[in-house]
């Protein structure tokens, strides 16, 4: 049973058929691990904490830099030089003190990932390099963790929701194992709101999943490509590749 203060705080999402009281209680019992606290992770975390996700783990070894403030909206000049995990944790505690937030000031790698994601109900890949994204995909696949991936560069954002061993759906390595990705925020630049759109999509998918679990209408294995400049959005099926070294 929700208390009257919880009903007031979460009233706007409790009205939704995709959430309702039961969904909210599921959200409140959940644990989400957010890896990467830049333009994607800092904003997605803000929405998840605002929505009352019970336990949130923030993972990033980076510090807040002046060039981050153009798009990483949860930080401000007071945070320059501070570890992102610590700065974000302090800001998010002001938003919703009832959420159990943990900050890990480390970079995810092959060795620490299994431990980081161990108790997660789902993982958000908010990192910015292909190498780390591949490691997160692999760790989530072998630990059977639902994974919500988003990425952005220039005026383009992309996203995919992955559930290990879901029928014919592939994994991130099915797509990227034989592809070299040249673009990232550093070499190509990115428009602030574009990475924000990706983060909003990622947070939306995670909340819908946490509320209804396997009964949520999540499009697993659907790769979304949005060109924000052209106002176009395309969706493609990411099927399992027989060449994949992770999911085959």
């Amino acid at each position, binding site marked *: 049973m929700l208390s009257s203060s919880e009903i007031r705080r979460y009233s706007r999402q409790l009205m939704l058929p995709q959430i309702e009281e039961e969904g909210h209680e599921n959200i409140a019992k959940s644990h989400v691990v957010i890896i990467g606290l*830049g333009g994607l992770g800092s904003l997605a975390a803000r929405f998840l904490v605002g929505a009352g996700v019970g336990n949130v783990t923030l993972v990033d070894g980076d510090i807040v830099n002046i060039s981050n403030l153009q798009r990483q909206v949860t930080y401000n000049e007071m945070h320059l030089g501070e570890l992102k995990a610590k700065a974000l944790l302090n800001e998010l505690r002001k938003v919703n003190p009832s959420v159990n937030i943990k900050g890990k000031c480390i970079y995810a790698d092959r060795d620490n990932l299994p431990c980081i994601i161990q108790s997660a109900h789902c993982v958000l890949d908010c990192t910015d390099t292909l190498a780390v994204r591949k490691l997160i995909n692999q760790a989530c696949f072998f630990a059977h963790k639902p994974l919500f991936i988003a990425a952005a560069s220039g005026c383009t954002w992309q996203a995919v929701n992955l559930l290990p061993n879901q029928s014919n759906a592939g994994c991130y390595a099915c*797509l990227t194992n*034989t592809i070299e990705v*040249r673009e990232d925020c550093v070499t190509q630049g990115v428009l602030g709101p574009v990475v924000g759109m990706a983060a909003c999509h990622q947070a939306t998918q995670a909340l819908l999943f946490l509320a209804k679990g396997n009964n949520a209408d999540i499009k697993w294995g659907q790769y979304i490509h949005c060109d924000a400049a052209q106002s176009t959005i395309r969706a493609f099926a*990411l099927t399992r590749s027989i060449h994949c070294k992770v999911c085959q």
Partner: protein
Amino acid sequence: MTQINIFVNDTPMSVISPISIAELIALNQLDDIGTAIAQNHTIVSRPDWSKTYLNSGDKVDVFTLVAGG
């Protein structure tokens, strides 16, 4: 050899069949690094490009993967 009509990123295009996705990439002089291809809204993994042939009316989507965050 027959001429078939396909759509590449929604733009109609006439090509000589048989033509594989790999040949389409070469024909259009597309940079294949970082490029992902979907045939009729299903992504085709890169090792399959040379053995995946296009049919009349096929919708081919070509896009560049991004990884920034």
